[in-house]
């Protein structure tokens, strides 16, 4: 059980049976008045964000959240299949819950799956993934256009800007949080 005075950025609380992430937190207390705990909350199921103010007497349950390491198996239509490599238990997560992370998912990748009351509600990718370039315009030597980047397509279909020397077949390290190119990796 949490009370309002436990509130801080990053805390996860349960309200009306749903888990919420405290995105922002401000303590306010006008002189002689009662304390206000002003928060910005994100519903961890729907992603909706909103502001809400609590009072000292408000209490919250701790949401039953658990993170498990699982392996990405394959996608079938809008369904993404993952497996717990310890007990071979398989789960399915919908496309809408994967969001932009679909750009970085490759077979057999290890990810963290977040469960709420044993129901999978989110995926956390490693911060960096290595993806192969499947399409790139050749680098024209002596190109004087002055551009220092060009678009390439990687195996997941993601298109991103990279330095001009990247070629088809190269493996790139990409930051999954920003979607940006970090470096070329040697196999």
């Amino acid at each position, binding site marked *: 059980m949490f009370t309002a005075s436990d509130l801080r950025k990053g805390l996860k609380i349960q309200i009306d049976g749903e888990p919420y992430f405290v995105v922002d937190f401000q*303590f306010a*207390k*006008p002189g*002689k*008045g*009662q*304390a*206000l705990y002003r928060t910005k909350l994100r519903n961890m199921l729907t992603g909706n964000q909103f502001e809400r103010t609590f009072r*000292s*007497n408000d209490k919250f349950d701790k949401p039953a959240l658990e993170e498990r390491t699982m392996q990405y198996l394959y996608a079938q239509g809008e369904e993404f299949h993952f497996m717990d490599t310890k007990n071979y238990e398989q789960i399915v997560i919908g496309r809408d819950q994967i969001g932009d992370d679909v750009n970085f998912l490759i077979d057999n990748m290890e990810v963290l799956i977040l469960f709420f009351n044993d129901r999978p509600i989110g995926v956390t990718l490693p911060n960096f993934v290595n993806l192969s370039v499947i399409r790139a315009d050749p680098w024209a030597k002596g190109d004087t256009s002055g551009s220092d980047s060009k678009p390439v397509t990687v195996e997941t279909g993601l298109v991103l800007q990279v330095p001009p020397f990247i070629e088809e077949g190269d493996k790139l390290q990409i930051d999954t949080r920003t979607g940006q190119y970090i470096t070329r990796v040697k196999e």
Partner: protein
Amino acid sequence: MLSPERLKQRAAIIRAVRCFFFDRDFLEVETPVRLPAVAPEAHIEPERSGARFLRASPELEMKRLLAAGSSRIFQICRCFRQKERGSLHLPEFTMLEWYRSEADYRDLMDDCRDLLRYLGKGWRGPEKPGCDVDAEWEKLTVAEAFRRHGGMSPEEALEQGIFEEILCRDIEPRLGIAQPTILYDYPAELGSLARLKPDDPQTAERFELYVNGVELANGFSELNDPQEQRHRFEQERTKIVVMGRDPGPMPEKFLQDLAIMPPAAGIALGLDRLIMLLCNAATIDEVVAFTPEEL
């Protein structure tokens, strides 16, 4: 932890504050930190220290000094309040309090103006082009502020339990922007130690000083009727009990001395916040040697 440079700024401001009061013939006093009884206030949770309480404010003891004949006193001291932590709050902070006998809250408003102008060289607000302490100060009643910015009266807001929300969200950010603001004349129930206006017993002679949207000081004409004070303390104690806390013993010696306290006015100013504003700091953390988290 604070840089030597910021520590020097802090020390220079505190020295200047002392000079201001010395120049005006105020006596610096020290009163005890550990107290057997504190003023019961519904929204202040004092820290315990063995069988005693750490002071949340030196108010009661300073008024007892007035009762004993002192007439202009000030104190710079550490105060303690449980569960108060935010960008403007520390559970242990430095308070500046001063008291004048034969004075009322209007005299304290003048003191505030003189103090800020005295310290005012180099005064700048964070982000904002600057709050001009030398300009004429804005004076706004609580009723007018609620009507103008909250769309209701303070009494309606209290009844709906949203007084603090409206104050924090809709009013405070608009106060003390171009020049400092004195927000004054609070509903009687929000000033448990304040005197009520002789011609309007629904209103307490209480004010707050705002600079750059930050509440800097809270002052009032002191209630000096022991029966009325006991009655208000009882009301606060009831609220504390309803909230599930122990109100502690009644501060009997204070009530005794109140009977011989002359008419007076007193004010508490958050010194860390004042330093924050003078140093152009965005949070209280940037002006104290250590935050609780750094210990």
